[in-house]
């Protein structure tokens, strides 16, 4: 009789253990499929600048290109030089004056 009771207790305990283990396994499955929690986006922080209060100046002009203001001045200077050359030609028309070389940095 005692052996029967002990066997019954062990059986019930084993069933309970298996049930708990199965439940735990079922709960853990959705944990793995859910997306990881979204962390708030944090802007990249510029490296600390020691011994300087100045913010870095953003570089707009690619290397090798003059700023657009300089380019516009070069265009204006070029037009003025070309007009002067054209005026010279109109005052004294000759092939040499028509095709005189310009010193404009825009085309040299």
């Amino acid at each position, binding site marked *: 009789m005692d052996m029967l009771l002990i066997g019954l207790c062990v059986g019930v305990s084993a069933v309970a253990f298996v049930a708990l283990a199965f439940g735990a396994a079922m709960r853990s499955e959705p944990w793995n499929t859910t997306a990881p929690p979204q962390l708030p986006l944090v802007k990249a922080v510029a490296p600390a600048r020691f011994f300087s209060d100045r913010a870095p100046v953003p570089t707009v002009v690619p290397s090798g290109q003059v700023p657009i203001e300089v380019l516009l001045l070069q265009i204006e200077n070029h037009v003025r030089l070309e007009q002067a050359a054209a005026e010279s030609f109109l005052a004294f028309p000759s092939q040499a004056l*028509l095709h005189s070389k*310009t010193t404009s940095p825009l085309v040299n």
Partner: protein
Amino acid sequence: MTHELLNGLSSAEIEQILKLGTRLIIPSGVSLFRLGDPADRLFLTERGRIKLTLPMQVRGREEDVFVEERSPGQTVGWSALIPPYRFTLTAAAALFEAEVIALPREALLHYFAANPAAGCKITLNLAVVIGHRLQLFQTMWLREMQRTVEVRSA
């Protein structure tokens, strides 16, 4: 002040013409007219300089690029007398403020009808102004073409 458009006119005629106009002060950088605007007035430059520009694409941006500058005595906006009466450039006071006399087309045409001799002289003066512009830009165009050909042939 001698105006190129009024060359050869008597003092009385010049006075009559100038009375048709209105004096305008144009602050530096402010437009007198813009490309495409209806041209119903032409302007005699009295003081300062008027910068003429045209829009051009520079590095993907539209910029007003220098074309010509008009100084005192010179005429600006002769499109007011030439069909289709639309300005083909943008005009603005250059570095300093400028002063111009604005002459309405209608008033000028009435004056020409009443004073044909003066009208003829003004028309001839206008032809000189337009002809000079044409020759100047023809020469500049040829020089640019020559450079293009040289670059292509190099």
